[in-house]
């Protein structure tokens, strides 16, 4: 780390929390309602939804309103006095391992409750308008409520088993909702793809959970983390592998390279699903997991942070670049989400617990908002493609205004939410001395601003190219967007270094104490570089994609040379996965063999043949062919004869094989008796 930054960050401190927290009183004790209410609502929607005027949507919104209010109360309590509360009920017992259901109320979980409750309430309300006239709105709201319940189950988990149950529950809901319009084959395969990719990662999560739980003798996260904080030798032996395996699980859910491929395809689902699950909450489950287990990563398994940092950094840049070339507005936002998740994961990997979670918090607001804006546009244009949009600024003023607010927040323009969180992450990279990562992060910020500027200019400027007349969405859809736009502006003000750092205290309210870095003041050079990158991105976007009537033709066909082909094929990753197993075996090897056969071997054979023929003609006249012929033919004929006999053994009749197996088993037993 250079000395200049050292000076700047002299005020930064390694935080140690050793404060006594409150237990949250009756609200924390009754926090199980947060989980139960959505599940009850799910059952109610399944059974009674169809008979209600809004097809069950009102039950879902009601449940989410409850969750939001309850979460807000918990959040306020936590803000005032700091809450650490945990309660578990035994459900079953295998040997000494207890399977428990419980709930945790502390700074981290109450922050997540609030994010989930607030976003879910707003997006469910939005969905009332968006899903009007859908083929099966009841089922949509049922699955959506199931998702909310599973997500809260995951977040409230005091033990790893419950966390896995919630984790799989959100995976299930994700599968159901991506494939909501399953009549289209593409949608149902997108759902399956998400499910499969996540399953691959979940194996890591499950094994990791067992690896960590077995030496401690308990699945409770607090027991595991207590052992970690107490430097117990048993867990130290497995800490690295446990942490790495948990991260594999997080890679799937949080769409980290190379398992990010499912998230863009997941955009096949309805837009409210993309907003709530695939942008704001579900995909942050991996980041939440890293945050929940952070004491493990802080010191004991610090080496496991290296892959976390590397994967996060790779993800943030490659996904950001991919977002540049997408025509589908939702896919731009999807890759943007992957990229921002990369920032969060990289922050966790760099040891900036607060910064990572802070970005989760702000990202939930502005990315949820951007998706709602995109959904509003899609709802009006009836197309996902930006080539069918353009000029929507006039007919859709509210959508335009809120979308721009979200864009600026995501780009990290002062003083919107994204500025503070992204700056804190970049400052953390700088503080920890990861210069390469810092550079990539700044480039990522430039790319982020660029593709968002591109999206805004292509969608809202120029002339309209779609069909029909675009119109502003109904109030039930615009109101949530306005609220979220407000939050996207002010959401970052809860953690201004040197001014007000409430967020740091909230998420630091944990039962375990652990070392963690967060900035106490701005890292001014980083602020300047980051802001410049963001402005440059927007300016570049303006020059390349701003469209008025005259320049439109030229701009529309603009493709960045060199980069474009690579990006348009998504780095050929999907191709790699689809053909990665078959083609190397079937294609190149076969082609190589064919090539070798026709050039190398044939050449050798031809040459050899040529020489041999000359030689043979000579030998033929000298050696009596009869003797040799007889010998060779004899060998050939006897081989042929033998083969003809032995091949009869392979009759293809299953029962003869079975008979042979039986005889073989009998002979084995006899052999054991006689020689054993």
């Amino acid at each position, binding site marked *: 780390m250079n000395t200049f930054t050292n000076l700047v960050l002299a005020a930064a401190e390694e935080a140690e929390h050793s404060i006594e927290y409150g237990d949250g009183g009756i609200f924390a004790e009754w926090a199980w309602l947060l989980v139960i209410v959505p599940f009850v609502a799910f059952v109610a929607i399944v059974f009674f939804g169809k008979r209600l005027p809004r097809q069950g949507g009102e039950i879902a919104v009601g449940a989410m309103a409850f969750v939001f209010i309850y979460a807000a109360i918990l959040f306020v309590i936590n803000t005032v006095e700091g809450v650490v509360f945990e309660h578990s009920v035994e459900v079953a017992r295998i040997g000494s391992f207890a399977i428990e259901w419980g709930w945790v109320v502390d700074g981290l979980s109450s922050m997540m409750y609030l994010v989930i409750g607030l976003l879910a309430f707003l997006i469910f309300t939005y969905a009332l308008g968006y899903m009007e006239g859908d083929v099966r709105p009841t089922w949509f709201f049922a699955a959506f409520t199931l998702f909310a319940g599973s997500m809260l189950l995951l977040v409230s988990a005091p033990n790893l088993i419950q966390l896995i149950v919630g984790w799989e529950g959100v995976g299930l809901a994700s599968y159901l909702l991506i494939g909501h319009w399953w009549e289209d084959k593409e949608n149902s395969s997108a759902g399956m793809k998400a499910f499969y990719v996540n399953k691959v990662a979940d194996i890591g999560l499950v094994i990791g959970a067992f690896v960590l739980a077995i030496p401690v003798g308990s699945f409770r996260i607090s027991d595991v983390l207590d052992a970690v904080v107490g430097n117990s030798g048993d867990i130290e032996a497995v800490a690295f592998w446990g942490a790495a395996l948990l991260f594999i699980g997080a890679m799937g859910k949080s769409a980290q390279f190379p398992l990010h491929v499912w998230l863009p395809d997941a955009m096949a689902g309805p837009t409210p699903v993309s907003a709530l699950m695939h942008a704001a909450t579900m995909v942050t489950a991996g980041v939440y997991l890293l945050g929940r287990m952070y004491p493990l990563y802080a010191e004991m398994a610090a080496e496991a942070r290296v892959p976390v940092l590397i994967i996060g950094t790779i993800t943030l840049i490659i996904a950001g670049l991919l977002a540049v070339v997408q025509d589908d507005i939702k896919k731009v936002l999807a890759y943007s989400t992957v990229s921002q998740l990369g920032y969060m994961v990289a922050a966790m990997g760099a040891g900036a617990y607060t910064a990572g979670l802070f970005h989760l918090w702000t990202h939930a607001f502005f990315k949820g908002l951007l998706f709602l804006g995109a959904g509003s546009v899609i709802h009006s244009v009836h197309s996902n493609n930006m080539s069918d949009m353009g000029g929507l600024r006039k007919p859709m003023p509210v959508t335009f205004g809120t979308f721009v607010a979200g864009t600026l927040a995501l780009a990290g323009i002062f003083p919107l939410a994204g500025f503070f969180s992204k700056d804190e992450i970049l400052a953390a990279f700088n503080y920890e001395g990861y210069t390469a990562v810092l550079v990539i992060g700044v480039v990522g910020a430039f790319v982020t601003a660029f593709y968002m500027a591109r999206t805004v200019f292509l969608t809202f400027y120029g002339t309209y190219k779609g069909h029909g007349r675009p119109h502003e969405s109904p109030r039930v859809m615009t109101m949530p967007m306005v609220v979220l736009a407000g939050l996207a502006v002010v959401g970052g003000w809860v953690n201004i270094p040197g001014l007000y750092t409430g967020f740091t205290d909230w998420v630091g309210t944990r039962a375990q104490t652990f070392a963690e870095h967060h900035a106490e003041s701005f890292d001014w050079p980083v602020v300047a570089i980051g802001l410049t990158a963001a402005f440059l991105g927007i300016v570049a976007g303006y020059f390349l994609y701003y469209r008025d009537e005259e320049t439109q033709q030229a701009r529309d066909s603009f493709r960045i040379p060199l980069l474009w082909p690579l990006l348009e094929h998504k780095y050929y990753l999907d191709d790699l996965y689809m053909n990665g197993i078959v083609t190397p075996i079937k294609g190149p090897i076969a082609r190589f063999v064919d090539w070798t056969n026709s050039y190398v071997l044939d050449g050798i054979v031809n040459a050899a043949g040529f020489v041999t023929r000359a030689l043979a003609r000579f030998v033929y006249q000298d050696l009596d062919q009869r003797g040799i012929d007889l010998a060779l033919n004899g060998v050939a004929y006897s081989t042929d004869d033998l083969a003809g006999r032995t*091949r*009869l053994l*392979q*009759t*293809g*009749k*299953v*029962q003869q094989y*079975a*008979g042979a197996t*039986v005889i073989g088993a009998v002979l084995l037993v006899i052999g054991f008796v006689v020689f054993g």
Partner: protein
Amino acid sequence: MPLLRRRKPRKKRCRHDSKELEARGLELRIPEGGELVLLNQFLILGALLFSLGVYGLLVRRNAVMVLLSIELMLNAVNVNLVAFESFLRNAGAGGQIFAIFVITVAAAEVGIGLAIILLIFRNRTSANVDELDLMKW
């Protein structure tokens, strides 16, 4: 079992000393009857059932019949498991539980087996095993 309740108990034959068993944490349960029931009679019956199953497995042409023979073999295994459970006095129901597992797996196997046979029948309009010789030379 009322069916087997003896009228007068015979001399009890115990192969284990009760104290020795208690030392091992096991409870000596003195049976009320059945002293002359040999283990081997069950084992031989099981062997007979199993061999008949093997015979059917090898000789039947119809795939459904082959499956029936396999059921016979599984049943032989169940007889052995339950007999051993009865024989080992403190097995903790392990034999019976595994018999239940065998029954469960057999049910699954029949379901899958019949589905496969159905598929074969659809493709070849015959469920005869000897006509399925795609694996030959």
